[in-house]
């Protein structure tokens, strides 16, 4: 960095939803109770792991030992505190946690390149946390999945409206939805519109 240049203030991550994300209550809340509560999970660290087919066991052990989570079987996700590991394909996982360290470096250190390709994807996804009794209806507006049989710990890649998403089921009526960053504003508006008839509360990002 050239000495004469005065660096701007310390950078803050700018969410793709900035300018689109409005908190408050929207739509048809019955007795003040929303059918959906929505919040953006901001500043996530996300690392994509793609293991060589013959190194699946090594990666499993490394994640279990170094990240306290046993990688889930296909179409599942596991979660511990602020950390989750999502199965996103054969021998492919996403490690997700709130950004507080260089997660990519930590994963790379744990999993050498002889075992897996490891790629930083922390800025490539936007994540919404949805919770509420109308969750199934809202998701069913955009996805052909059978959400009656989709539950806690399930994890699928699917189409929601126009958008390719990963959905991680949490509890009986909650889900985290991950979508590519560039599509995020449109998906956010889609989620808001889809939720209006059930009553929507958008809370501060978490």
């Amino acid at each position: 960095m050239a000495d004469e240049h005065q660096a701007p203030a310390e950078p803050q991550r700018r969410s793709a939803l900035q300018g689109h994300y409005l908190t408050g209550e929207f739509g048809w809340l019955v007795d003040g109770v929303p059918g959906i509560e929505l919040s953006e999970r901001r500043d996530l660290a996300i690392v994509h792991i793609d293991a060589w087919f013959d190194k699946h066991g090594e990666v499993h052990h490394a994640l279990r030992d170094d990240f306290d989570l046993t990688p889930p079987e296909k179409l599942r996700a596991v979660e511990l505190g602020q950390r989750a590991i999502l199965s996103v394909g054969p021998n492919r996982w996403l490690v997700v946690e709130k950004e507080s360290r260089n997660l990519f470096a930590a994963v790379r250190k744990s999993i050498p390149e002889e075992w897996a390709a490891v790629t930083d994807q922390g800025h490539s996804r936007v994540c919404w946390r949805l919770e509420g009794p109308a969750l199934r209806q809202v998701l069913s507006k955009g996805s052909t999945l059978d959400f009656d049989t989709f539950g806690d710990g399930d994890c699928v890649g699917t189409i929601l409206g126009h958008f390719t998403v990963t959905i991680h089921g949490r509890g009986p009526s909650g889900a985290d939805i991950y979508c590519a960053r560039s599509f995020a504003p449109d998906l956010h508006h889609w989620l808001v519109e889809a939720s209006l008839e059930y009553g929507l509360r958008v809370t501060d990002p978490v």
Partner: protein
Amino acid sequence: MSGNQPNRIPDFGRIGRDEPLRFTFDGKAYTGYKGDTLASALLANGVKLVGRSFKYHRPRGVFSAGVEEPNALVALREGARREPNTRATVAELFDGLVAESQNRSPNLKYDIQSLNQAIARFIPAGFYYKTFMGPFANTRLWMFFEKIIRKSAGMGTASGEADPDRYDRMHAHCDVLVIGGGAAGLSAALAAGEAGARVILVDETPRLGGRLNQDVYKIGDLSGGEWVEQTIAKLTALPTVKLLTRTTAFGYYDGNLIGAVERVSDHLPEMPVHLPRQRWWRFRAKQVILATGATEQPLVFGNNDRPGIMLAGAVRAYINEYGVLPGRRAVIFTNNDDAYRTALDVMNAGGAAVAVVDARKNPRSTLIDHTRGKGVTVLTGHAVVNTHGHFELQAVDVAPIDGDGAARRLDCDLLAISGGWQPNVHLSSQTGAKPVWNDKMNCFLPGTPKRPEASAGAAAGRFTLAAVLSDGHARGTQAAALTGHSLDREVKLPRVDAETPAPSEALWEAPDPATGHPKKFVDHQDDVSADDVRLAHREGYVSVEHLKRYTTLGMGTDQGKTSNITGLAIMAKLRGQPIPAVGTTTFRPPYTPIAIGAMGGTERGQHYKPRRRSPMHDWHQERGCEWIPAGLWDRPRHYPLTPNETLRQAYVRETKQTRQSVGICDVTTLGKIDIQGPDAAEFLNRVYTNGFAKLPVGKARYGLMLREDGQVYDDGTTSRLGENHYVMTTTTANAVAVMAKLEFYLQAVWPDLRVKVVSVTEQYAAIALAGPNSRKVMQKIVDIDLSDDAFPFMACGPCHAVTDAIRARLFRISFSGELAYEINVPSDYGRFVWDALMDAGAEFGIVPYGLEALGNMRIEKGHVAGAELDGRTTADDLGLGKMLSAQKPFVGKTLAQRPGLTAPTRKKLVGLVPVDGKTALPNGSQIIELADRDKPRPVKMIGNVSSNGFSPELNTPIALGLLEGGLAREGDTVLVAYPLKNLYIPATVRNPHFVDPEGKRLHG
């Protein structure tokens, strides 16, 4: 009769008499009740004339009480929400409803076009086609008269305004989908639901119950209505059962997918802001039960279309469901027992049943005896042969079928007709199950199922209540069992009185009266008469599909629900063949009309297609850029300095400033693919035409990809970030396709290669900085030495941008031909770094440039892009033949050597400038020889213009093109032809590298 609704009868119907609703029809105010349809409310108010017929503009009244209605088509609502061709029989009444008749001028009563009746003999079926054959063929007369005919014979018109309402979509899965909420459907849903199956029941009406709401039945100790309420309560209590009313299943598709539309708020005066107007459902069911009921068929006789002539079942529906007696003196004309109920219900409601005219010679049943016992005259072996009246029915002529036509006149204001019931086999037949004709029942029954479905109740040809209930229960139980659910107790079905109706007898067309030959309508909506069918037969249109197209029989909003059977029966008789030999027309979705808005669903306006935004999107917006779509991305096209600055002025300014000092461009949209693994170099060597095995770490290389057939596929740079780590860039348009192709190669073609690919397009914001001052600007924000020695052309490497917190990748690559850099930073920092670069570049007058300037600069440099990589060009065509390595195999190599792809006559890349130095050479122009300018067309096309721009440095329009002979013709003058605008521009062929052909600036 009550108050201002003269035909409303007390103590009948399921309407809310404590909720009066005001509405208007053709500007006149009326009152109805909650639960009415527009048709029932009009009938309650004594309004019989509701429309004019399609062709002859004959007065028409309400004919049915359901979706099959051919006559009562009206326009509902006003302004942008005006919806034409709505069936009054299914339009739910709401307070403030505004309805208007259509296809009449100046008004419904006095319609000038009713004069068409006087020339009816000259406008039979097919006149439209015939009139303009022979001497009129291919003349302007056809176009002239077509407009008049279309205007006169039409239906309603839409508002022409954008639909203001929202439409929604929903997907649902279930074990058992029950379509139809009548007795059979309710019974089936209850059986399946109580067995524990996930059940969805849909019904097109607002009230479940079907005919149980419209006829008088006892089920055990309950009335039909009470049984319905009790059953709904049971179903509602079951946690796995979902009931959907106002939902029409319109189509049955592969994979047991059923399409349906729910009218969520059509029945409300104001559309609630948070509710869609309609919702498009897609049901995926393991088993489907088609309890879709049956449609009563009319009879064909002279002048059978006057207002006051109505299906017999509809009369009972108006009495029992809506509390409306459509006429005081009723004649019933039938060929079956069911219509006798109408006589009894009319009398029970206070009307007079003048007579039952039964086409059968000697029918015997308890119901007939009971009707006779009530004092009703029953004329067997008779038919109605003519009717009288104009705006309403006044009398009918009745004659023995086998007699000489001598008729007796019966005064009446209501004629209830029944030609028997036709099961609604539409959805069943959409699966490919061909309907089967049943001679005894005179109707088509569903064919052998081809999907996991079963028809139940009337839809399966079971027409007594006992049979309907038990069939529904059996089908529901069976469907549940097939999905693994069964009830561990026996269910006792409710007791229902046995019915033993006399067999019906077909009467497809009543005889003419003794004198005259009145019109006998087969298809009321399309004004198709029995004579039209005969005419079609005489003229050789003997297939039912041809009959339909020639006469329009079965077209329109009702799709022949009350006409197809009769029409094909008449045709069968004319052909001397049985009905099964003639067959039916094809049943296609939708079962009933669907609003285009519902099909569009949420994909409108903002959500018509997804838009991709770069991390710097808001900056471009704030700067006032003009946007242009690039694939799904929004990209800045240019940044006008003033409102009056034109596109060309803007991009020329941006080009000049970039070449003279420094410009900045958002290139996030280019595809970025991370490639990792010990075999990555070998992989790249195979997919690119040029060598990558020896690319050192910290270097980038331009690469070219071919398709398997040898044509150029994509290009871009690939940089080696580590020993086993590369990042590939692709064009914006091909980013997804290239990624998919690489995945395919790795998974299917070379699974032995140890390589992984991951898209990082979204992970990084990409910013290009170009121009002689770009190094000075970039150096201000990165922590590595950018001197030419330390970071030469095609160098790449990691760095920090602005602060140590931002880990970036820097590339010294150039699309503009200038000294240039591209920096990739994590996307959430994209805007921050962009701002920092703008600050850093302020002293150099940094200019943001858009897609136009980007394209213009690459044209100046002769770089190919999407316009040239059009799937028809080879590497050699584009001047890139040297990139085809002879040292290694690569995708597309073999087929690139085909004679056709290496022929010397192929068109090759050239540069073009107009001889006059002024006239732009439009994209898409054809290139012809100058000598062919004045020759008769066609002349040979020797090339085309692929891209054009304006070079500030040369001060002339420039273009890239593909030309036979290529650069061998450098210096020649050719003619750039754009015949659509009559442009013929002489242009000089020259080297496509217009600016800095030696590439000195790149190495500056």
